[in-house]
């Protein structure tokens, strides 16, 4: 018997009991399809996250408060048990004034408040207090109206720019410009609406409300000791003139802030991060996520393999008479073993093929009907397909061996 004949024999046997064959393959089909779909979802997510992050520009440095250190080092006489320390508003001006190679500095401080406009009330809306360069540094585009200027920030003007979705939720199709929104009792005048931006690192930029940072300091996060130590900020974005000065700027900022906060670099109450760091962290997270999905899918493949073994064992018992007949006309144990092994492998491969089609189709449907982006990775098809074949060989071996060892006399007597 050569390979072509073995394949033909397996194919005929599979075809002669289509329902059983389909049920046998189902486990493999689902396993392979889920491997491909899961990997395509995680790759899609990864790709869009990366795109969004790099969309912010690669010449950006983030300075954030390092909470673990806050209050630990600074011997502030106003000591309020961990409430002091961290970045303050004036740090941003200091960076802008004293660090060379800086293009723009943007400060952010946020708060969660209740927003009212007309008879619409929304709870838990994020109010982002910021400065004039925010749109350019964070890659946001104004759709209608305008963003506020630094003068308006300095004068604590009660004005607001709405995220795209938020504007629709509050005002529907009506023009929001010039309207008033009430944020936890403070009336703010709408001067602009942002264009759609989407999710970046799990934050929906379209559902936020943007005001001058000074308004946030004054109305939403009034610090007890602001008069003495300045207003606390969450993050300072520093845009560089060009990416080459990155290392130098990070050093300058570190030294400047350490001096201003009166701490050593080792126990700094702030962290300076780059775009690259964030992408790497993000990649590590999604890679872990993807690996987890791959494992889950791998387990389902194994379950599919056990299904194949199960049905093959039943099939061996059911076909004992056939095996006896074949043995009586001269089939050797090897012939029988190969017949059943080939059948299991062909079943797995056909199941794998259907699974690949279902996986690619499923990924496409998933990407179309849901917000999630999917990206079918060719290697995942290969991976799923070869594991299906491996599963077939592995789980087909035991039943095939069992068939090969049947005694011809017993087998012929089997009803």
């Amino acid at each position, binding site marked *: 018997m050569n390979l072509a004949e073995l394949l033909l024999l397996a194919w005929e046997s599979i075809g002669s009991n289509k329902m059983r064959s389909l049920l046998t393959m189902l486990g493999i089909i689902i396993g392979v399809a889920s491997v491909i779909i899961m990997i395509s979802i995680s790759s899609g997510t990864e790709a869009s996250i990366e795109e969004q992050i790099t969309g912010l520009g690669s010449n950006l440095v983030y300075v954030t408060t390092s909470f673990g250190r806050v209050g630990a080092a600074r011997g502030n006489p106003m000591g309020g048990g961990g409430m002091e320390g961290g970045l303050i508003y004036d740090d941003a001006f200091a960076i802008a004034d004293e660090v060379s190679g800086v293009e723009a500095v943007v400060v952010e401080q946020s708060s969660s408040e209740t927003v009212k406009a007309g008879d619409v009330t929304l709870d838990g809306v994020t109010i982002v207090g910021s400065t004039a360069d925010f749109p350019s540094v964070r890659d946001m585009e104004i759709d209608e109206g305008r963003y506020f200027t630094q003068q308006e920030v300095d004068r604590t003007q009660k004005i607001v720019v709405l995220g795209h979705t938020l504007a629709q939720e509050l005002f529907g199709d009506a023009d929001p410009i010039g309207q008033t929104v009430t944020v936890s009792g403070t009336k703010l005048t709408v001067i602009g609406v942002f264009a759609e931006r989407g999710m970046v690192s799990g934050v929906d930029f379209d559902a936020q409300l943007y005001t001058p940072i000074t308004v946030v300091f004054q109305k939403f996060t009034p610090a007890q000791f602001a008069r003495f130590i300045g207003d606390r900020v969450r993050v300072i974005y520093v845009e560089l003139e060009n990416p080459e000065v990155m290392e130098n700027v990070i050093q300058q900022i570190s030294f400047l802030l350490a001096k201003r906060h009166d701490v050593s670099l080792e126990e700094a109450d702030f962290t300076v991060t780059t775009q690259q760091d964030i992408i790497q962290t993000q990649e590590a997270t999604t890679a872990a996520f993807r690996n987890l999905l791959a494992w889950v899918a791998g387990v389902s493949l194994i379950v599919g393999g056990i299904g194949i073994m199960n049905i093959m064992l039943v099939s061996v018992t059911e076909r004992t*008479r056939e095996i006896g*007949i074949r043995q*009586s*006309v*001269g*089939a*050797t144990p090897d*012939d029988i073993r190969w017949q059943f092994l080939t059948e299991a492998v062909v079943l797995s491969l056909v199941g794998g093929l259907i699974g690949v089609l279902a996986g690619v189709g499923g990924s496409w449907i998933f990407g179309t009907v849901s917000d999630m982006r999917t990206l079918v990775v060719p290697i995942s098809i290969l991976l799923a397909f070869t594991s299906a074949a491996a599963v077939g060989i592995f789980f087909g071996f035991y039943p095939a061996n069992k068939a090969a060892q049947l005694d*011809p006399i017993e087998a012929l007597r089997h009803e």
Partner: protein
Amino acid sequence: MSERPIIQAIEVKKIYGMGEISVAALDGVSITIDEGEFVAVMGPSGSGKSTLMNILGCLDRPTEGHYILDSEDVSEMDRKQLAGIRNRRIGFIFQSYNLLPRTSALKNVMLPLFYNRNHKRSPEEREAMARDVLEIVGLGDRLNHQPQELSGGEQQRVAIARALVGDPVLILADEPTGNLDTRSGEEIMGLLHELHQDGRTIVMVTHDPEIAIHTQRTIHLRDGRIEKVVNNGSGSKPLEGEKVRHESR
């Protein structure tokens, strides 16, 4: 007809179990069957005739003694070698036909050729050979019928064609007419006689003396031993039927 022995069984024993509780299904059976003979094996159930047929058919090995098939000692062969012997030297005809279900008559008959390692033939060649023997047994017009679409007599003819296709030295028939009505049974016996006329060596198990008497010799078994051997005359008596000649292969 030549006097070349096809079957030489020498003190063949088949013992099941060990020591005190062992049972001898065959207790020293010696037979010689020459080429071209048509021999019947008879005996009550438990006489060892099934065991003997299994050993003669190389489906089983004797515990003691020697079985020489066509001048080759097969009593010490392993499973793989025995499979080869069954494939090339022996043609089986069973009481219950033992055809592969959902498989055409042609494919069923091609099966032994499929497993022939010594002589690999192309699928076309095998099909042509299977077609030839199916025509010999009178089923030239039923090639693509599956067993469930054929009558019992026709199914047994397919089985005979399958036994013949590899041109074996020995045909073993185990109650070939046992599942058939009288008329079909006679047709099958007629076919076996034709094969005998053509020089085939046939050993047939039967419980029907009427059928056994049409063979040359009847071997009576009892309790695992040969009780007696009865000569039914010099030649077998074929039933009336069309004479079929085939080419000597």
